[in-house]
């Protein structure tokens, strides 16, 4: 069944340069649990928005700003207002543990948006961030990804640990926060230590995360 889009809506929707699928992978967690990292389906977007909505009022560790921005970015994706945006979820037994997103600026340049961790203390954020960089470089064959940090945790984890290069003259979509860039060279240098995952993903883990649900309680 096809959906008919009227002419005006068609003009409002951004064109796409075409995005390749991200192959799901299993990330072993220290607790013995397995986290599946996979693309979010269009129909799951409202659930993700509902999940992070309470965090939009949580000032601790800048959860409020990150949650609010992801909410808007997901809405933009859901209503077809962002060009070439992707969103991955980290899930454990179907429970949403973290969300990352970003978009492609053009074929060679990517733009990282946000990383939010709902299950803290088991390196979910670090793993998800690495997964999105993997998508830009190893799936979409891009040369560079523009990155900003909106929290001290993010700055330490991305700018310092990945040794990102400053590109302050370039304005990231997220505003005036200084822009840094992960180059292919830096990615190749750090990926062995930062990017892990088992492929093909175990069938039982894929199955366990087919249907996503909100965490009963989000402790941040």
């Amino acid at each position, binding site marked *: 069944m096809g959906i008919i889009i009227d002419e005006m809506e068609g003009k409002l929707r951004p064109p796409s340069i075409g995005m390749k699928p991200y192959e799901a992978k299993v990330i072993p967690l220290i607790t013995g649990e397995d986290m599946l990292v996979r693309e979010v389906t269009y129909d799951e977007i409202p659930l993700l928005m509902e999940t992070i909505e309470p965090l939009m009022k949580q000032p601790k560790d800048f959860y409020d700003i990150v949650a609010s921005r992801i909410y808007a970015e997901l809405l933009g994706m859901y209503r077809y207002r962002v060009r070439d945006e992707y969103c991955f979820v980290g899930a454990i037994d179907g429970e949403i543990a973290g969300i990352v997103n970003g978009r492609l600026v053009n074929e060679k340049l990517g733009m990282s948006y946000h990383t939010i961790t709902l299950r803290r203390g088991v390196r979910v954020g670090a793993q998800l961030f690495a997964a999105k960089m993997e998508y830009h470089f190893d799936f979409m064959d891009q040369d560079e990804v523009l990155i900003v940090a909106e929290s001290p945790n993010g700055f330490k984890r991305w700018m*310092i*640990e*990945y*040794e990102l290069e400053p590109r302050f003259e370039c304005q990231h979509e997220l505003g005036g926060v200084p822009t840094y860039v992960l180059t292919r060279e830096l990615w190749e240098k750090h990926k062995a230590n930062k990017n892990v995952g088992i492929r093909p993903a175990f069938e039982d883990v894929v199955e366990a995360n087919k249907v996503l649900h909100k965490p009963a309680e989000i402790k941040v």
Partner: protein
Amino acid sequence: MEMEQMYTYKCTKCGKLHHPRYIVCQNPDCDGREFEKIPLEGKCRLLTWTRVYNLPEGYMCPWLNFGIVEFENGVRATGQIGFDEGIESGMELIATVGIVKEKTILYKETVVAPQHGFIFQKA
């Protein structure tokens, strides 16, 4: 500049060598309080080392290498290791002096005040 020279402090009473500077001689059988400054430099042997990724406030690099060395005169010192590849306990190193910290945190302000210290290099 005098700051850029590191020293061993020789007790003028018993001759024991010290690093860093002490107020009283560390020889249990001596009570010397005066020391002669002798440049501490040259060859040393690496006793142990580490690479630290979680640096304190003020360091904007992903990691730093630290080591404890023993100089030929038996004096030991802690310092930074100025290279990344092939660090091994027991290896011979050369002590150089360089800037080990750019900023100092004082009450209510952080001042830019480069501090000099040992940076060990490959012999």
